[in-house]
């Protein structure tokens, strides 16, 4: 009981994730700034922002469902932290693993998006309403390619468990090459999930101010922002576990170091992409996801099925 509590709250649970999330936000912002020829924030900036938001007054708009409005940030945070426990990080087994946890992780990663939608929807502001409508519209665009991209490796390994998946690829690292297309698709879909350029459509500040979070302030906004940071770490960990599961048998210290390198690599990729492109329009985004990403993801699934029939049957 005691160990479980420490695992959930301290390591690799909430505290570790909060630190990793804030550090991840700092690295992302710093790299983004350097790519843009700027200095960027000091290392403690995300933490300072977080503490400042915690100390601010929180306002609930008139006419909003007070319970729902206050509950949504907590839901978002809980979902992303829970998802983290089922992802194998620096070993071949996750903290908790069971057959079918890949589906649970993907499902848990969908919950934050719904909380953004509900939080914005109950805010009773036109900007928040438009932002939440965009959040949901965007969800239907990137979710299918993301699921298909993760389905590919799972089919190849013949399992729905992330831990068994890593075990399979640990034994056959060369099989990872088959998932290259899936990796790119999942990375792009992750940008949509994290609402980052070019898919920051739901919170495009020049159009709809703060999107779904327009009316959020103080503590609630702080939880939402922290959940975004942790979602980035969880999402990157999922990508690392599914598409980059190598060097997992090195023991804790080396494995942990390698895990951090993988996460840093993914965060750097995200920062690079968002400094290179402009924000798409929602119709362009949906068109891109359904006309380009989804067919390629389907192709990946078919290729993996064929490969499985030839090599692993």
């Amino acid at each position: 009981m005691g160990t479980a509590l420490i695992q959930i709250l301290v390591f690799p649970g909430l505290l570790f994730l909060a630190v990793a999330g804030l550090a991840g936000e700092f690295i992302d912002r710093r790299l983004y700034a350097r790519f843009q020829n700027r200095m960027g924030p000091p290392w403690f900036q995300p933490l300072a922002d977080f503490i400042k938001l915690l100390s601010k007054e929180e306002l609930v708009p008139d006419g909003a469902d007070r319970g729902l409005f206050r509950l949504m940030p907590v839901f978002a945070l809980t979902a992303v932290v829970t998802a983290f426990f089922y992802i194998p990080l620096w070993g071949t087994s996750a903290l908790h693993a069971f057959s079918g946890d890949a589906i649970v992780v993907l499902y848990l990663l969908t919950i934050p998006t719904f909380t953004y939608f509900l939080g914005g929807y109950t805010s009773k502001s036109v900007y928040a309403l438009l932002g939440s409508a965009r959040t949901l519209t965007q969800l239907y665009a990137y979710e299918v390619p993301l699921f298909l991209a993760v389905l590919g490796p799972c089919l190849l390994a013949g399992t729905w468990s992330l831990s068994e998946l890593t075990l399979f690829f640990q034994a056959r690292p060369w099989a990872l090459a088959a998932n290259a297309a899936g990796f790119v698709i999942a990375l792009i879909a992750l940008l949509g999930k994290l609402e980052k350029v070019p898919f920051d459509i739901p919170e495009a500040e020049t159009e709809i101010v703060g999107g779904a979070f327009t009316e959020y302030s103080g503590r609630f906004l702080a939880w939402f922002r922290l959940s975004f940071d942790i979602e980035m770490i969880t999402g990157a960990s999922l990508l690392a576990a599914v598409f980059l599961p190598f060097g997992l048998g090195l023991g804790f210290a080396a494995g942990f170091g390698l895990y951090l390198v993988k996460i840093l690599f993914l965060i750097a990729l995200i920062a690079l992409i968002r400094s290179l492109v402009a924000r798409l329009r929602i119709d362009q985004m949906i068109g891109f996801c359904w006309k380009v990403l989804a067919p390629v993801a389907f192709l990946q699934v078919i290729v993996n099925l064929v490969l499985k029939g030839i090599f692993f049957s």
Partner: protein
Amino acid sequence: MPDFGNVQIPVGPQHPALKEPESFLITLRGEKITAASVRMGYNHRGVEKGAEGRTYTQDIYLVERICGICSHSHGTAFIQAVEEIAGLDVPRRAKYIRMLVGELERVHSHLLWLGVAGHEIGFDTLLMYSWRDREVVMDLLAAVSGNRVHYSMNTVGGVRRDVDSALAETILKGVDRLEEQTKYYIQVCSEETTVIKRLSGVGVVTHEDALRLLVVGPTARASGVARDIRKDDPYLAYDELDFKIVTSDHCDVYGRTLVRLGELMESYSMIRQIVKNMPDGPITVKAPRKIPAGEALSRYEAPRGEDVHYVKANGTEKPERVKVRAPTLANLQAVSHMLRDNNLADMPIVIAAIDPCFSCTDRAVEIDRADSGPRDRMDWGRLRAHGIDFYRSRGVDFTELNRSLTRRMKKL
């Protein structure tokens, strides 16, 4: 897209997409804009009225402050009208220096616009890069005039500061660097897929509509209307320079971007010609303090389009009337036309694409009275009475306050 029926969203007077207060009421169906109405008047500062109460020399500095970006445009347009009334023959060297500052100002304004456009489509890297390079031209302007904005180069009858050969070298070097960077931006804007996707087919004004709506400047030239005051009605010494009018047939925001980038390249060539052919001689002639009675209309191609100043003199040292028509006023009416049938996501860039300068534009005072039903215009006396009543009903009596202050002053 879930259907919410018609949603009206207010964009402005305070909104992150706008750099200055202005109100756009946008009616949406889903993400499509079905109607847009523009309301201005949030930034009225009474510059025209203020100009009537000041001397011509003071007015130069006042009209410069109409706009923070095209301050030289307003200053020169005003002073050209004054010099025409006074019949002054401005030295050629002064004209060249005015052109030099004018073109440097155009470069700074267009680079600024490029950054803003990048920000409006969520491409912040373009903003950071172009504003970094804009520092080069800002430094040049500071070297020429001593100020980064509000150059205050003009005086009645000429300019206040000379450009020596060392400064000319610095300018040429700076222009070389800027030209190199601008070529890079032209490459970025014509090759980067997301930029082209966001700008093409957005905020369309056809050639016919451009003529009908009387748009000016780069907005008109992007619709294939080859209008440029520098060519059509040359002022200063623009007829001695070799340059072409940059136009585009895209008729959309992308065309406006290309036109502005092309104009940057033209401006660099013009700055080189100006520096090379700078004539010798005095930079100013003596001007009378009192300007003889008369009136003049002056046109100037500001970075955003045609800027018109009308000055009426009555033989004293103060003008009787000054009227300004800033380019944004001409373009603003086309905005609601441009916005129709576009996506909400394109609203910021469509508004930004005319390079709006709302504080330049706001010169009329209109007051909506909640109790009088339809719009009502107040004359000066009623406005004053309304102001007194307004504060009295809130317990502040300025008349009484003034009297008590006067009494206290007398006691002292």
